[in-house]
Structures are given as C-alpha cells and as structure tokens.
C-alpha cells in the first residue's frame, strides 16, 4: 500500500488528523532542505509536501514565488530535488513525501523518466498544480503503475460533476484549495470550507486535505475539526526566509511553529462524524 494511504489510515485509527507542512526544495539553501524535513517530522509532520521550484509559479503568492526564485538562484533543478528526497529517505523510510510543482519541468524531463526517477528516489505522491485531471491521462497511468499517487486540487469553484470526475482519478487524498486565491492569501472562512467539504465528501471516500490560507494554530485546529488533513505552507516558508541567515534558529523556530499547530489540532479533538 502507498505510504500516504497507510498514514491516513493509521492516524484515523489513532483519532488524529494529518498535518502536512510544505516547504520549497532548495530554499533558502539546498543543504538546509533535508535537515529541515527531518525537523518537520520531529515536530509532528505526518506527510510532507516538497515544492519543486519553477520560474513561473502562477498559482503561488509572493512568499512561495520568492522561495522559488531563491531556490533557482541556488541552482535547484528537478533532478536535484529528487536527490534531496533520496537523501531524506536514507534516514526516514516512513514519512510520505509528495512533490508539488508545475508541469513544464516534468514535461522537459519526460513523464516516464520523471516517474521512474521519482519512484526510485522514494516519492509517494505528485501534485502538479497546472495539470487538471482532463489533461493528465498519461501521467496518471505512469504514476499508478509506479505506485505513486497522483494528487489533484479541488477548488471553491469546482462543480459537483468536476469533483466526482477528479475524485475518480485522484489517489492518496484530495487537496481542497480553501479559498479563491493564490497560496499565502488572507484568512480562509471555516464555515464556507465546512460546507464545501460536505459536498466533496458526498462524492468520494478519499481523505480530504485543506490548504491555502492556514497560518496559525487556531485556524489549523478549526480546519482539523472538519477535514482529514491540514496543509500549511506560506507561514512556514515566510519564517524560513526571515531566519535564513541562522539555520539553527530557523529549524528550531519553524519546528516550534509546526509543533504549535500539531498541538492545537490534537487538542481540537475529532468529531465522530468525520472519524471514518
């Protein structure tokens, strides 16, 4: 079984929600990425989304745009991202790792070559922001054959019909974009998210992750009450940038930030309706 599915089941049994931090590979420096990943796991990450930097991150707000620019300036490439994954896997064979990025770097490598390299490195899922399911037939087939979960987004604007079709093709989890906007946008509206999640649940049994706009422990806790997983990205990436000159302190404070979310989520308890 894919590590992602396994992790969701494990936490469901334990009555806890899945916490998914996002960082951009190579930001602020390639050498800091793997230690940061281990620190995130120690602080309570259940799954990690690792951003593959792209020159034109159309769905990202300024924080992750800048992270991409910094990583690219340090010579980060898709192949080097996979080397970092391989390095992480030498110590951590349990934590599921999802690559999040854009289509062109994958196309340039070739879908088959990319999927083979990702599988060999120990990648569990791939979320390609600008690849909607209707254009994804070939990558889905290749990933499925390699045991990698193709992960797709669902948005506030997605119709029930689209949600159904997407859910049929997705594996691992569905990623609900909590607001109309780019990553790092203003606060999400928990009541609106809850309403849409109910609609999505009626379409699928896949676990539902919620991301975009989750910045602090109270929001993480509120979302944990209604979703299966909480994704937090820009808040961590912003902190990493702020402390980039002091790697020790950066790891400590970003880990503390994540741990605070973990704690808030675990204390929030889990209403039985979503206990699965």
């Amino acid at each position, binding site marked *: 079984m894919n590590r992602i599915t396994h992790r969701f089941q494990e936490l469901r049994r334990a009555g806890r929600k899945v916490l998914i931090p996002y960082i951009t590979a190579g930001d602020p420096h390639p050498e800091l990425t793997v230690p940061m990943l281990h620190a995130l796991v120690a602080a309570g990450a259940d799954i990690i989304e690792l951003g593959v930097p792209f020159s034109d991150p159309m769905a990202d707000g300024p924080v992750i745009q800048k992270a991409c620019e910094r990583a690219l300036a340090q010579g980060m490439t898709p192949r080097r991202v996979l080397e970092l994954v391989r390095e992480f896997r030498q110590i951590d064979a349990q934590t599921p790792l999802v690559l999040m990025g854009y289509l062109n770097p994958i196309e340039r490598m070739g879908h088959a070559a990319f999927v083979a390299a990702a599988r060999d490195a120990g990648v569990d899922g791939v979320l390609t922001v600008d690849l909607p399911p209707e254009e994804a037939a070939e990558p889905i087939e290749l990933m499925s054959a390699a045991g990698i979960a193709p992960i797709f987004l669902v*948005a506030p604007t997605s119709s029930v019909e689209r949600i159904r079709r997407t859910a049929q093709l997705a594996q691992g989890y569905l990623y609900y974009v909590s607001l*109309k906007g780019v990553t790092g946008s203003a606060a999400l509206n928990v009541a609106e998210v809850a309403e849409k999640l109910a609609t999505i649940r009626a379409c699928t049994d896949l676990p539902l992750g919620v991301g975009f706009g989750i910045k602090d422990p109270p929001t993480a806790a509120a979302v944990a009450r209604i979703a299966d997983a909480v994704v937090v990205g820009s808040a961590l990436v912003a902190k990493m940038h702020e402390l980039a000159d002091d790697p020790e302190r950066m790891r400590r404070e970003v880990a503390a930030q994540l741990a605070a979310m973990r704690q808030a989520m675990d204390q929030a308890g889990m209403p039985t309706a979503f206990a699965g």
Partner: protein
Amino acid sequence: MKAALRNPVDFSQFPDANGHFDRYGGRFVAETLMEALHELNEAWRDCRNDPEFLAELDADLAHYVGRPSPLYYAERWSRQLGGARIYLKREDLNHTGAHKINNTVGQALLAKRMGKTRLIAETGAGQHGVASATVAARLGMECVVYMGAEDIQRQALNVYRMRLLGATVQPVTSGSRTLKDALNEALRDWVANVDNTFYMIGTVAGPHPYPLMVREFQAVIGREAREQMLSEYNVLPDALVACVGGGSNAIGLFHPFLNDSEVAIYGVEAAGSGIDTGRHAATLCAGQPGVLHGNRTYLLNDEHGQITETHSVSAGLDYPGVGPEHAWLKDIGRAQYVAITDDEALQGFHDLTRAEGIIPALESSHALAYVTKLAPTMRPDQSIVVNLSGRGDKDIYTVAALEGIQL
C-alpha cells in the same frame, strides 16, 4: 506547406472542443480557474453564433476602431526592392494604433454580456494595455493592467496613456519583470477575483478558449485582406508575412488563408541579438514543446524546464511562448517561421518610413525586414501581403536612444 498539400487539413475544424490543435493547446491551469474557463467558453460559444452580438461587434469595428483597414499597395517600396508587389494591411490605422483593439473590443462586449464589472489585462509593449484601458473607459468598467517593471521603464508613453484612460497600471516585480511575469500576475488576480473579473488576454496564447476566441476576433484582418485582394486585384496573394510575438496579428491574417494551400505563409519572430547569442525571443525557431500559461506550445526554456529570459528590441515580441496554433502550423509545415534580428528590424523600420512615409511599430518592422529578403526572390507579377500590425509612435524613444539621440 508540402505536407499540407499532400494531406489536406480543413483548418476551420481546429481546435477540438477542448482547445487542442493536435498535441498543442488545451487547458493547463490551477483548478480554481477551470470552471471560469468553462463559463467563458459557453458564453463565447453563444455569442459567436448570435446575430445580435455579431452586429454589435461589427458596428464597433466600423465606427470605433475604423474598419475595414486599407490594403495599401506600397508601390515605391516594391520598386526599390525589385521583386514582388507588396501590400500593407494597415492595422496601424486602427484606433489606438495597432491590431490589439480588434480583440479588446470583442472581449469587452463579451465581458459586458457576462455581467462582469472589472477587466484585467497583461501587457508587454503596452499596446494591449492601452487597447484594454480604452474599451474599459468606453464601458465605464474598472481596469487593472499588469505590466513588468522592466517594460514600464521601456514604454513610458503607453503607461501614461493607460493612466489617462483611467486604468491602474500595476507594476510586476517578480521573475524577469517582463510580459511573462505580467501574465502570471494577471492569472493570480483572476484566481482571486474570478466572480466579477474578466481577464482579457492580449494574444492567441493562454488556456482554451483564448487561442480560439482571440483568433476569431483578429481574423477580421485576414478576411478583409482576402476580400480586398480578390475584389481589387482578382487574385490571392502568393505570400503572407506577419510578426509573431504571441501570434495574434499573425494568426488573424493567416487563418482565413490557411485552406488556400497555394498561399505561402511566413511568421517572423524576434532574433534579438542573434539566435546563437541566446539573447532572442524566437520561440518557434529555437524552442521546444512545453507547457506555460495554460497551454502546450513551443517555449524557450532551459534543460530543466525553467522558462528563460528573452530579448528583443520590441517589447511586444519579447515573450518566451507562442500561441499553440502556430506550434501546430509549424509542425505540419503549413506555415514557416523565420527570425529577424534587432538590427535588421531597425533597418526595416527606417526603410518603410523613408520609402512610404509610414512609421511602423518595431514589432511590425520584423515582418517588414523579412519582406526585404523575400520580395527580391519573387517575380513582379507575384504579391505579398504583410501585416503592418501597428504604428511606430510608441517606439521613437527607443529608436532615438539606440541612435544616441536624446529626445
């Protein structure tokens, strides 16, 4: 072209319902925009068959834009070059001075139909920004134009025009601070304001239905040119020439002639300092297929798939992608794509100015420079239609500066 002759393709049948020109085109955007694209596609499908919409569009094109634009026989220039007869399709005479307004007039009517209250646009040279601000002023709509900080420096005149027209010009400081980054930023705005906002893309790129919709709004150029050649000279031209940035003025001229397999078609890209220097924007001549800004097409990118920075003396051609239909026309051989350097384009700029008393845009000057190579290889009984996509007033500061003159 040979391939097209062997294997007749009915070009009116492309793209398919999902915007594919064979392997190119499509819709590659984040999920939030997918429904907005479907909504746009439906609205556009209704309008393109609605006689009332088409009548309103025609009236605007006639009375506001000033169409039809003349097809002018450049007799003196033709004689100087000593070959084919050269006809200029005078898009420079349109209101606001370029072909861009054909598209914004159409998209604005559609936006109004859809009940949108806010227009956004990206711009490189500022021509599409001006054309967008112009129609927004006319409809009393809010208008935000995204423009690379770098381009704002280069195109001060158009920035001021947009502001006079009441638009907000939003400088884009991410990435390479040029047109591609302005497009990214406009897409981000659209995601956040998708309920009330209409995104007017300025060329035949972007996700479906933009490449199709913008083509249809611009195809008025080729329909008129075809009709003008037939009614005034009783022949089809032997060749068409147009510059290619995103490719809207080119596809606008080319499309109505695609099924006329005897008409040779040349798209002219910007070779900047020369393709071998790496400082250019010749996407079709030197790029590979990839995915950017919502469609699969040729791109300029590095071996890792990162989009590379481009260079051209003309801001309007300075773009690392190109419309997907051009990618397809290149692959099947129906059109040929060539490249002209900054220096050659400047020569073309001066040549036309002196020979015919018409100051062309630097973008259009790329097409003119290619004509100076092509015409002498043809016979005097043959003819070329070249798209004079815009006038050169916006470029005189650039040209003067290159010649060491301070205005």
